[in-house]
């Protein structure tokens, strides 16, 4: 009890070395190594089939990281994720067909903006409630918009879908690299994934991220500490939706075709499975979840007609035996490799 109350309740804070933090140098080297491997992968394995899977992995991973912001970090069960994903896809499709704009910078930025707005609107209506009620309201909004998209033939061509007339361009106007191969789409997606993870992790080290965690952990205490649950959930919904819309936009560029399937239930289920299997609230876990979600069904092709049954069984067993997700298996290894300073070891008593 050496600290006097003035130090704690007053403005004056004595200087002291900061507490141990983060994974440090070794962690960064590890991440860089993994990135190099990820970049080299499509060149090392020259198979169009594998390249196609890699594209799906990065798109699902981006969507998963986005969904983790709501489901994992803020504890919100939004059913509107397929809607914002599809909104991103349609934004890109309409820009390509109606505005002749093939720049993916413009397309994905527009998708992010549209996603933010749609996510914000879902929040504005739905976040007057919380928990299951919010899930139901977001479900309702998604279904209403989905039916509208299927019927607004003039704009969306309904169930026929929209074919993109040309590839997206990594640049502006006609100047830049065309996204005409899965390798390029994959590399662009990888870059976006790194950016996304970076943005979310950066936000987690700000008061915005703190407000998300507060609301997830304990709403009453969050409010008592000055956090407005509505505001925290609203920012989570908007950030999450922006990210998922970018993933949806990227899918549009890679497949060259956008239909109501881009906002179908399989998108939502995919996001939920990826976040839960990867490890709720771990951010990196969503990447692992996406890899499993894409690769496992392919690996199970040998099981033929039983494929989905086995896939479902594996997921169910995974949730039972690894309840905290894949990241909970990887994190300890990471900590060991990076010799992350455990706050416990750093003990303050001896200081």
């Amino acid at each position, binding site marked *: *009890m*050496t*600290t*006097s*109350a*003035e*130090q*704690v*309740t*007053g*403005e004056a*804070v*004595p*200087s*002291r070395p*900061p*507490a141990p*933090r983060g994974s440090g140098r070794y962690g960064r080297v590890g991440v860089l190594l993994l990135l190099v491997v990820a970049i080299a992968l499509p060149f090392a394995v020259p198979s169009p089939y594998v390249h196609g899977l890699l594209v799906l992995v990065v798109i699902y991973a981006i969507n998963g990281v986005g969904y983790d912001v709501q489901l994992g970090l803020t504890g919100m069960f939004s059913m509107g994720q397929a809607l914002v994903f599809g909104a991103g896809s349609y934004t890109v499709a309409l820009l390509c067909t109606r505005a002749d704009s093939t720049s993916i910078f413009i397309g994905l930025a527009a998708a992010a903006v549209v996603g933010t707005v749609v996510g914000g609107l879902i929040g504005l209506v739905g976040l007057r409630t919380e928990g299951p009620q919010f899930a139901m309201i977001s479900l309702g909004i998604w279904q209403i918009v989905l039916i509208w998209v299927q019927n607004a033939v003039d704009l969306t061509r309904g169930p026929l879908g929209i074919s993109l007339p040309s590839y997206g361009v990594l640049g502006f106007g006609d100047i830049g690299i065309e996204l005409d191969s899965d390798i390029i789409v994959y590399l662009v997606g990888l870059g976006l994934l790194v950016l996304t993870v970076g*943005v979310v992790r*950066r*936000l987690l*080290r*700000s*008061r*915005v991220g*703190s*407000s998300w*965690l*507060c609301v997830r*952990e*304990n709403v*009453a*205490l*969050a*409010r*008592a*500490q*000055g*956090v*407005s649950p509505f505001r925290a959930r609203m*920012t989570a919904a908007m950030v999450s939706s922006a990210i998922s819309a970018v993933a949806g936009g990227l899918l549009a560029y890679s497949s060259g075709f956008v239909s109501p399937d881009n906002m179908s239930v399989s998108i939502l289920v995919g996001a939920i499975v990826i976040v839960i299997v990867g490890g709720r609230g771990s951010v990196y876990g969503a990447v692992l979840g996406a890899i499993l979600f894409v690769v496992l069904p392919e690996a199970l092709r040998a099981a033929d007609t039983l494929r989905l049954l086995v896939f479902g069984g594996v997921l169910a067993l995974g949730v039972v035996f690894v309840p905290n997700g894949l990241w909970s298996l990887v994190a300890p290894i990471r900590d060991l490799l990076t010799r992350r300073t*455990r*706050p*416990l*070891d*750093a*003990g*303050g*008593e001896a*200081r």
Partner: protein
Amino acid sequence: MSGALGLELRDVSKSFGNLQAVDGVSLRMQAAGTYGLIGPNGAGKTTLFNLISGAHRPSSGAVLLDDEEVTGTPPEGLARRGVLRTFQNTSVFDSLSVLDNLLVGAYLVDRRTAVSAFLRPFRHHRADVALRERAEDVLDLVGMTSRRGVVAKSLAYGELRYLEIAVALMSRPRLLLLDEPGAGLNEAEVTRLEAILGAITTGRETTVVLVEHNVGLVSRACERIWVLDRGRLVVDGTPDVVLSDQRVREVYLGA
């Protein structure tokens, strides 16, 4: 905005259906003191706390902080004015470490904004360092420095009580409401709690109100005590006066 807040309740009542939980309570607590609120179970102490902290809205009456009416302000609004509280049933961020409880809970004093996170890296880093230094100071004050890496849900019960107080202290409370901080603590832990309370109040930057059953703790820590019974104030005064009052002995001590 700093300095202890004075608290005034004017004829505050709260009923839940037919139950009159708080019935016409008026009191005035000067800034920077340490006060006790005692009474038998069901006397309405926690309800009164909830009215002061904004968790409940009074059915009638007014709540004033430093002569400014704040009746009906939501909890997060009152927290912004410096009213911080702990909960009767120990409320922390269960799955976070002790240190993260302090960092995440310090929303009000956290200068690490979303804007600085991306556009002002140096400012952001300084804010981060300042927040962590503050967390270390608070950990030091509650004597939990060596426990900073422990996940909250695996803490011992007594430590949860200290952690709760620490989380509230992060936000520089001007009025600190502690709901039964001594409940379930053994004698040694109560002594440690008293030391923490002493450290909080020596700077006189904070008004502290305790709801407490431990009469010994209240009479040692508080300069003035209010006794509540069936939603009404029965008596108030210095610990000596209150605890020797015949009505208090009847309603509270059962003697």
